[in-house]
């Protein structure tokens, strides 16, 4: 399966990165990691790319890492459609201090607009 993982650097996106790479190593998916804009990210784009390379190395997985400019939700949906991806994977939401799950606007846009399957990783 051809999987497009979108990450912006929030904690839940890093969790998604780890889990999707582990899954890819298991089942041999064709993975592309798209690093998208997130003004509220605690990590820089270069840090995220470096982290991604490390995770891929440790898991022994080969994947393209791509920097994606512009609105994250619409860019992910557009790339997935144009390039024939089967699934878009995203972080499954931030957790509030008391433990409430909050799904962000990127995930919402992708859920409502993607013609592929969408996986939110918890």
């Amino acid at each position, binding site marked *: 399966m051809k999987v497009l993982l979108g990450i912006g650097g929030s904690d839940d996106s890093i969790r998604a990165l780890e889990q999707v790479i582990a899954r890819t190593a298991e089942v041999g998916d064709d993975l592309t990691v798209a690093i998208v804009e997130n003004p509220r990210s605690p990590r820089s784009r270069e840090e995220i790319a470096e982290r991604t390379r490390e995770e891929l190395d440790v898991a022994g997985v080969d994947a393209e890492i791509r920097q994606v400019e512009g609105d994250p939700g619409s860019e992910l949906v557009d790339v997935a459609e144009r390039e024939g991806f089967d699934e878009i994977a995203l972080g499954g939401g931030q957790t*509030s*201090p008391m433990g*409430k799950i*909050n799904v962000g606007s990127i995930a919402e846009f992708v859920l409502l607009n993607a013609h592929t399957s969408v996986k939110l990783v918890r």
Partner: protein
Amino acid sequence: MTGPERYPDDHTDGFPSPPRTVEDAEGRTIELRVYDGSDAEREALQAMYEAFDPADRAQGIPPSRPSKLRGWLDRILDDDCFNVFAWDGDGVVGHVTLVPENGTESPYELAIFVLQSHQGAGIGTALIETTLGYGAEQGITQVWLTVERWNRAAVGLYEKIGFETTDAESFELEMAIRLDDQTESTG
């Protein structure tokens, strides 16, 4: 996530303080009291959540699995949090919790749960107002929450109490209220 980037400019004050006794719309006598830190009261709260209808869960809480429920109660009943319970006799039928992001100087996140058998009787409004009164006494000035935006009843209730929407860009509305710091009041 850390709550709103900005809070309403206007302060809201005049909320009542616990303990209070109110009569709900069904004529039941409901006591609103601050959690006393005892195991007995914690067990009464846990019993309410064990009886909770999964359909009334919000954004993953309360957790269903017993071990997760205990872990969640550990977090929200911690010393830096503020908790007010609504009692009908010996049973807890409602609960408001205020949980800080990072220490008592930071903004507090609010959540409310009312047992299905006691919903729609005005307990939620009384419980939130009383907890905000308690929080103001304790020096809290910034309170925020998120609510699923299709939950119009809840959004209307929060607005009536004085919360304003601070972020409406995703599934959950983010709302906030600014309280008067009652500890600095010179009366």
